[in-house]
Structure formats: structure tokens, C-alpha cells
């Protein structure tokens, strides 16, 4: 057993040696800036660029691209590569606030920014509808707009609910949120004889490669995307965005490298975000607390032109033993950019609603909230009847309750006080997140000096995939960590799949495992123990698949697409689980809420890298606290867009908001999913935290949060 490996790139990061996308400064670099439309929706009538062009150092002002210079990309969810199907500067339409009407390129970023501010336009403005309730939105059943989608039904949930002895019926509103990664969206693009090279922080180098190739009319082989490190992903960078193609066109026209950084305010308006969603939960139970029925109705926002699907109810159905289930999901078309996958995109809202309702059910049945959850545990997936590959939710709840001291909780709201007179609330919530996995092509090269290089189709966005790879190699070979080099985030290496959906570890590590097996075979080495010395470099390239996947799935990844599998596999359903416990303190007069401590116990299969895994859980808990008490991107019904589109107005938590975060892993391998027994972690660590906070707030104050975030005015 080796001691836990520190994060392998920690020193490089804190000493500034790691280069992110915008850190690349090729010779002759020109700088680009965007001019956003001044309206929320409508069309551009005329654009005046003379003032902008007169700024010293300005090289190019683009307001409308030439025919065929760049085509609109295809939306990710209909087989394409882009977060939305709108590409600015192709026509006169303005679909949403913040959409650029001009790109200015200059010798310096200052000249570019100054000139961009001097581009003037006249518009025909149209009214906007930006919230679920604004007049002018269109509401449609998801089943009518997304074939072959059908809402999930198990048994006769309506009848079972009507016949239930205990019933909870509640509606929960979850707000629009933005992931605000620290690294701004940016592209550094240059052309040479080989084609075009893009340096850009991304979770999906293949999508940028394939999507940009399509936009430019190039074969994929002539596009290289380099993203060895990403300054935070959280789903925000899971696909092609609008600035990459614009920078590529400018670089081509000028014959110079071009850098385009999207400012924070424009990131709020030109990239994916967590859409607003409304959840009606009807939860029925017997007098003993056993669940008899669950109905989950969802309304979720999308843009006018792309359907970002609603997939909430697959998770809410699987947290407990639910004998009868019915889902109904609707899509609400609004005048925003197309929403996207922000960390735990469906699971955080769905589980917030479910776990809030469970707390109400605990009150209705008189059961302790932990007991109620243990009572309704299941070994079988309610939707398919398949067994879970592994499920340690009950153990998470038990261990968490022990660590937290849950037994000392008095059930009555407002019954616990701290020494300083503040109200104390203790809350709990369960968490579940699908355990997906994808095909991978992994290459290894063993050199005569003993060094091993691993090419993996993954993206390091701070989650620690490089550390997990090195730690896995060290564990399987006993070689020193310093001899392992990881090459990732460059399309010149191996094909890259989207790193998202918590499938990175369960995709990449089995690939590394399989490649090491193949290397040993090739070298005639025993299946375990140190790797032999080689006289000449030995290289293998090995494909791996998720359980039950046909080999063609790997071909899809090689072709630049996606092929994630799960959570339903031929013989089982696979999920990661967690239990979160939260203590809040509420000031009795001003009602200021502070999270005093948290305990999380997580079942993510075997823990591949304890150091980075713990960091992931801490991040997830911070995100959950932010979702419960802080974060709300405020849609502006009058002007469109978001009114608080910066880090002052969009209040992510600061250190002073975050308490000690205690955590523990079950660390039991899931051998069904892969040989290493790893499941996903990044998202389940956030799921349920907001519900645990809200349940704690109820325990302290008696206030039931039906919308997030909980604000001080809700508690006065």
C-alpha cells in the first residue's frame, strides 16, 4: 500500500509554471475584443465602425463574415459540438443579450477594447421573456419536442399516491446559476501550413476540433486543439463556444496569431449555465414511512432555438425504494442563450426537491430523517429492476450520523441553541449521481531509462485526473511517481472524449489499466510487479470500453464524438452515492445564516487518488453551500440577460462563508463497473448538499425553503 500521492502538478500550478489557454503568446500575436449588442433581442439595422477603425493600432473590424468563411455550428445535443447553434456575425439577428455584433483586432488588448467600445449600431428591438413565468414564453411537453423521449412511468403512481396514508406535495424553484470558472473563456489561434492550432481551456478538445473543422470547412486532421490544463470546467467548457471560430477567421484574414478573451460579463451571456427549473414533488408513504409513490413534474428553461433536455427524473426515481413512479418533464422556451451542463446539472435540483420533500415526510411520519432514509433504502433500481452494481448509501448515512453526532439532535425546529444564543439546525440529505463510463484509446510508451509516458484522452481541469493516472500506475507497477509522464489535453496525442458527467476516472483509469496489461504481455512480463527494463522504447495503444459497449463505441470517440454509457448497463445499474450532514447557526434577530460544519461520507467505489478526491468533495460541498445560500443569476425581465453578471453581483461563497468540511470515503471497489472498481465523484459530492443546508435551516427556524437560494429576507 503506497502513501497517498500529493497532487502531481501542485508545485507547477502554485509557481505559475502551468500555462493555461490565454497564457500562450505566439510571435506576432494580435489581440481581439468583442462588441456586444446593446439589446436583449431583435435585429441589427446598421453598424458604424469608422470610429473604431480610426483607433491607432486597429487591424481589423469584423461585423459580418463573408459567405462560407464560417458556418453556424451544430448544437451538442443533436449530434454536434457547440453549446448553442447560434454563431454571431453570420446574420443580423440578435437572439439574446450579450451576443456580439463586432470583433475588433488590434496590436494591443487596450486598442482592441477601446475600439470595440466605439462600434455603434442601431437596432430593432423585440421584447424578451427570460423567466419561467414571463409572458411570452412557450411551454411544451418534452415528449413532444424530443423524440424518442418518454416520461418515466413505473406502476400506477397517481393511484398509489392518492391511497397513501402520508402525503407531501410541494413545489421547488431552482434559479439560473453560472459556473464562473476562474479562467476566462479564451482562444489563442494561429494558422500554418498544417492548418489551424487552438489553445483554449476546454473539457472537450475533440468537440472544438471537430466543430471548428466543420465551421471552417476543413478536415479534422487540420485542426489541433491544445488544453493541457483548464482553469475550472464545471460543464462551462464542455463544447465549442462562439469565440473560437471568430478568432480563427480573424487569424486567417490577418495571417497572424490572434488571442480573444471573453470578459466575465460576456461569459455570463455567451456560455452554458444552469437553467431555471421548477419541481413539483408528490411523495406518498405508508404510516410507517415506507414510500408508496413518487410523482415528479419538472418545468425547465431552454433557449428559443435549442432544446437543452430535462433529465431530472431519472435520478429522483433512484435514490430510494420507489414502487410507483411517474415523471412529467416540460421545456420552457425563453430568450436566453442555450443553457448547459453545470456541475450536477440535473441531480442537484432534482435531489434538492426530493430531499426537501423527504424531510417534510420525516416530519409527517414522526420519523428521524436518517431513519426514514435508511428505511427506504433499496438494492434494486426502481426504474429497471436491475440490481445496483454497488450501493453503500445506508453505510454513508450511518457513518455520517456517527461522525456528526446526529444522535444528539432534538427533532423540534428551534429546539437547539448555541452558547451565543444563535439557533442551531442540523440537516441531512442523501445524494446519488449516475456512474457513467466512456470508451478510451490509451497509449503507453516505456523508455529504456525506465520512464513511462501515458497518453490519455482526458482534460485536467483541477479535478486531479493527472494525479489519479500517476497514482494508478504507481499502484500497479510500484514505479516512482517521478518516472510517469502524463500527456493529456492535446488532440495530437490520442482521441479525447468529453471530460464531464463524472465519467473521467471510470473512463481513463480502466484504459490505463488495460494498456499496462497489454504492455506486460508485449514484453512477456508477469501480470503484476515492476515493469521490466527495455532496451528500446516499447509502445502500446489500447482501446477500452464501458461494460456492455460494442467496439463501434470506440470508433465514435476516435471520430471526434461522444459515447458515454450508463447508468444502466446490461446486467446492472451503476450510481455513486453520498450522505451529507450540515449544521447551521442562525442569528435570532437579523436571521443571518452561517454554515457551522459539514460532514460528508461518499461512496465512489475505490478511491483512486485520496488527495484530489478529498479536494473534489470539499469543492462539491462549497458548491452546495453556494447553491443553498448564495448563488442566483438574476434574469432581467426588462432588458434580457442577467442583471448581476459579475463576481460582485453573482455571489459565490468566499472563504468566510465556508466552515470546516469533514469527509470520509467508503472506499469499497465496484468490480462490476471496471477492473479498478472506480465510480465517479466530482458531481455526487455536490448533490444533496443544498438540501442538507435547507433542512438544517428548517430545523433551526421552521422555515421550509421552496426556492433557492435562501436569503435573509426569507427568514425575517
Amino acid at each position: 500500500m503506497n502513501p497517498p500521492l500529493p497532487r502531481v502538478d501542485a508545485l507547477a500550478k502554485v509557481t505559475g509554471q502551468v500555462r493555461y489557454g490565454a497564457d500562450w503568446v505566439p510571435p506576432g500575436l494580435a489581440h481581439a475584443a468583442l462588441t456586444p449588442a446593446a439589446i436583449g433581442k431583435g435585429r441589427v439595422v446598421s453598424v458604424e465602425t469608422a470610429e473604431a477603425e480610426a483607433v491607432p493600432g486597429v487591424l481589423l473590424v469584423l461585423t459580418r463574415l463573408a459567405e462560407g468563411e464560417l458556418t453556424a455550428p451544430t448544437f451538442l445535443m443533436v449530434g454536434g459540438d457547440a453549446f448553442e447553434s447560434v454563431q454571431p456575425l453570420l446574420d443580423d439577428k440578435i437572439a439574446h443579450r450579450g451576443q456580439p455584433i463586432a470583433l475588433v483586432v488590434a496590436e494591443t488588448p487596450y486598442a482592441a477594447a477601446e475600439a470595440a467600445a466605439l462600434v455603434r449600431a442601431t437596432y430593432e428591438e423585440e421584447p424578451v421573456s427570460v423567466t419561467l413565468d414571463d409572458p411570452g414564453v412557450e411551454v411544451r411537453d418534452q415528449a413532444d419536442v424530443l423524440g424518442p423521449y418518454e416520461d418515466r412511468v413505473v406502476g400506477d403512481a397517481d393511484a398509489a399516491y392518492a391511497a397513501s396514508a402520508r402525503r407531501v406535495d410541494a413545489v421547488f424553484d431552482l434559479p439560473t446559476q453560472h459556473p464562473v470558472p476562474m479562467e476566462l473563456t479564451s482562444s489563442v489561434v494561429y494558422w500554418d501550413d498544417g492548418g489551424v492550432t487552438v489553445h483554449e481551456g476546454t473539457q472537450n478538445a475533440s468537440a472544438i476540433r471537430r466543430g471548428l473543422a466543420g465551421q471552417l470547412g476543413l478536415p479534422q486532421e487540420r485542426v489541433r486543439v491544445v488544453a493541457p490544463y483548464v482553469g475550472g470546467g464545471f460543464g462551462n467548457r464542455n463544447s465549442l463556444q462562439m469565440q473560437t471560430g471568430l478568432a480563427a477567421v480573424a487569424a486567417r484574414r490577418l495571417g497572424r496569431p490572434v488571442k480573444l478573451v471573453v470578459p466575465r460579463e460576456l461569459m455570463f451571456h455567451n456560455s452554458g449555465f444552469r437553467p431555471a427549473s421548477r419541481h413539483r414533488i408528490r411523495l406518498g408513504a405508508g404510516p410507517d414511512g415506507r414510500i408508496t409513490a413518487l410523482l415528479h413534474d419538472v418545468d425547465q428553461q431552454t433557449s428559443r432555438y435549442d432544446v437543452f433536455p430535462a433529465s431530472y427524473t431519472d435520478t429522483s426515481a433512484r435514490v430510494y425504494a420507489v414502487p410507483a413512479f411517474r415523471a412529467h418533464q416540460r421545456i420552457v422556451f425563453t430568450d436566453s442563450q442555450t443553457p448547459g451542463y453545470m456541475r450536477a446539472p440535473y441531480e442537484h435540483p432534482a435531489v434538492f426537491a426530493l430531499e426537501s420533500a423527504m424531510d417534510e415526510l420525516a416530519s409527517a411520519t414522526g420519523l428521524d430523517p436518517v431513519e426514514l432514509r435508511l428505511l427506504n433504502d433499496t438494492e434494486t433500481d426502481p426504474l429497471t429492476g436491475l440490481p445496483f452494481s454497488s450501493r453503500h448509501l445506508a453505510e454513508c448515512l450511518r457513518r455520517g450520523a456517527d461522525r456528526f453526532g446526529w444522535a444528539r439532535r432534538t427533532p423540534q425546529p428551534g429546539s437547539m441553541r448555541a452558547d451565543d444564543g444563535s439557533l442551531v439546525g442540523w440537516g441531512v440529505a442523501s445524494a446519488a449521481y449516475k456512474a457513467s463510463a466512456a470508451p478510451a484509446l490509451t497509449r503507453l510508451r516505456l523508455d529504456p531509462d525506465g520512464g513511462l509516458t501515458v497518453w490519455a484522452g482526458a482534460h485536467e481541469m483541477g479535478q486531479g485526473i493527472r494525479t489519479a493516472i500517476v497514482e494508478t500506475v504507481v499502484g500497479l507497477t510500484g514505479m516512482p511517481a517521478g518516472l510517469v509522464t502524463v500527456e493529456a489535453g492535446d488532440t495530437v496525442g490520442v482521441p479525447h472524449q468529453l471530460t464531464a458527467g463524472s465519467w473521467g476516472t471510470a473512463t481513463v483509469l480502466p484504459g490505463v489499466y488495460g494498456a499496462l496489461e497489454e504492455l506486460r504481455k508485449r514484453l512477456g512480463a508477469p501480470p503484476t510487479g515492476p515493469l521490466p527494463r527495455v532496451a528500446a522504447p516499447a509502445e502500446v495503444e489500447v482501446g477500452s470500453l464501458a461494460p456492455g459497449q460494442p467496439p463501434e463505441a470506440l470508433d465514435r470517440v476516435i471520430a471526434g464524438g461522444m459515447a458515454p454509457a450508463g447508468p444502466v448497463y446490461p446486467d446492472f445499474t451503476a450510481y455513486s452515492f453520498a450522505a451529507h450532514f450540515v449544521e447551521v447557526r442562525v442569528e435570532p434577530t437579523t436571521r443571518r445564516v452561517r454554515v457551522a460544519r459539514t460532514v460528508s461520507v461518499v461512496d465512489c467505489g475505490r478511491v483512486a487518488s485520496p488527495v484530489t478526491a478529498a479536494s473534489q468533495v470539499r469543492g462539491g460541498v462549497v458548491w452546495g453551500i453556494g447553491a443553498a445560500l448564495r448563488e442566483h443569476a438574476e434574469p432581467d425581465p426588462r432588458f434580457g440577460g442577467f442583471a448581476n453578471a459579475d463576481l460582485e453581483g453573482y455571489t459565490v461563497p468566499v472563504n468566510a462563508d465556508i466552515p470546516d468540511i469533514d469527509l470520509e470515503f467508503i472506499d469499497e471497489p465496484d468490480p462490476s463497473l471496471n477492473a479498478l472498481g472506480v465510480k465517479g465523484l466530482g458531481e455526487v459530492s455536490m448533490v444533496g448538499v443544498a438540501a442538507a443546508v435547507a433542512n438544517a435551516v428548517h430545523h433551526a427556524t421552521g422555515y421550509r425553503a421552496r426556492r433557492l437560494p435562501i436569503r435573509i429576507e426569507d427568514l425575517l
Partner: protein
Amino acid sequence: MARVRAFEYTTAASAAEAVLAVTPGTRFLAGGTNLYDLMKLGVEAPEAVVDVTRVPELARTDTSGPDELVFGSGARMADVAEDPVLLRDYPALAQSLALAASQQLRTMATVGGNLLQRTRCAYFRSTAHPCDKREPGTGCPVRGGLDRGFAVLGLGETCVAVYPGDWAVALLAFDAVIDVLGPSGTRTVPLGDLHRLPGSTPHLEHTLAQDELITAIRVPTTRAGRASTYLKIRDRESYAFALTSAAAALAFDGDAVTEARIAVGGVATKPWRSREAEALLVGGPLTQETARAAGEAIFAEAVPGRHNGFKIELGVRTVADALFHAARTGESR
């Protein structure tokens, strides 16, 4: 990327030199944490700035005198927040600085410049939106709209933007005055006369002429400083402006309040003090009832908007809590 128009930059070696360097379109530059920010947003576009951070006389701070505390306008917020006399004898003043912005910003920003910090209204800060304060006559979209963070006291005909600072609120409670240097000499302005109500001219935020420079802030000493506090309620526990705040200071004779000072922030278009509220407290003991009555007196004329009505009840409770914090602070000394 910031869009900053080219501008002229000069430094001044003395306050007099700085004042004489002013031409139309010139702004004084101190910490730059607000002015540069607004220049990058295109909200401010001075033709020239005169940097006064190298003027030695503006950095002079003296809190040792028997009659008054003197803060040079160029003293850094972070330094004044750690002044031992303030920490011991005027915790409300020290806290109002320590709870503002972030340590990085406090290290840059000056106590003089901070007094004239401009509002955080998102429409004021966005040149893509109408704003009567930024561009008079364009209107104000706040009332009836997204007004959660806006003022309930001192409302203008259109503008309801909050004065965002903390330090000026605490100073107001202590009867601070400012020394101002202009081309024709020095004058002294009570802090309460520095900021204007928006009325029909929200673009006019203070009473200083363009070529007048704040050189010092002076605070008369009072024993009520020892029993004082600055309580700030906000959407997160650091790096956020106040939803409501209260500076409170008390002096007692036995159980009876002999002196009370209360000013509130986050709720008004300028730093806000209520002598009526203070008078309610003097002469009797501090009780839950009198503390709350004082808070209610401050907010008696408050006008709620669509989403900010909670600030009235929260403000009342903030004042009441601050009074008890202040009293406890005094007891522990």
C-alpha cells in the same frame, strides 16, 4: 478586457500642487480602486488624472490627541483599520474599514477616496443600460424592477441607488468633519454636508468643487467610542456591500444612556443618521423595546420598493442588534 480611453497622468508632490494641476476633465487619483474600475467600464472617462498618493502630508494620521482623531486622506484603509487607538477606543470606526471590500482592495484604497466611492448599481455601471445618474435624462429602470439592493431612505425623483460605503457611515455617527483644500484655500465641511440627496440631480453626488481635494478627516474624541460597533449584514460574509448596516455608539451613567449615536448604511442614498432615534435612547436604560424603537424611528419615513421592503425590518433589527453589541463592547473594556 478593459476599455480605457487614453488619458494624461501626472503626479503631485504636494496638496497645493495637486489642486493647481486641475483643469476641466481632471480627476484626483488616490487608490484607484473605484476610479480605475469605472474607467474600465467606460462609466468615467477623465481626460487627465492627478495622482495624489505621493503627497506626504496626506498620509499623516494622528489618533493620539486629546481632542480629535486626525486621518490624512491618503492613509490606506488597511492601515487605519489596524490603528491600535481605533481598535481600543473606536471599534466602530475600525470595523467599518475592516468589513469593507477585501484585504487587497483595502491595502490600495485610501480613507479619503473611500468617502466618495460611487454606487454599485448595476445599471449605473453598465453603459449599455439607461441611468439618470450616469447619463442624466435617460431614465432609471430600477423602480418596479430589480430593486432588491436599493435604497428605502432618501430617494430621489428617479434614482434610488445606495451609497455603498461603510466608513462614511461610521464617521457620520461620530460627527466627523473633513478638511478640503481648493485654489482659494482651506475649508472644513461637516461629513453630513458632504453627500447630496439625489433629488432630480442624481449625477451630483457631493458638495465639493472639481478642484477641491479632501486633505484630512477629523473626528472629535468621545467616550462613546469605547462602547461602539459597526454591524454589517450582507449576502456573504466578506467582499460584499451591505444590505443593511449600522454604526452604533453609546455612553452610560450607571444603566442610563447619556449619549447615543446611530447611523445606517446600505439602505439610503447617502450616509444616514437620525438624531430623533438617538434622542429616544437617552435618559433611560437600553432595553429591547428602546433599541427597537430607535431602529423604527430611523426607518419611519422609509419607502419600500418592489423587492427591497425587507430592508426596513432588517434595518430595524440591525440597529437594535448593533446597540446591544455596542453596549456589550463597552462592558468588556
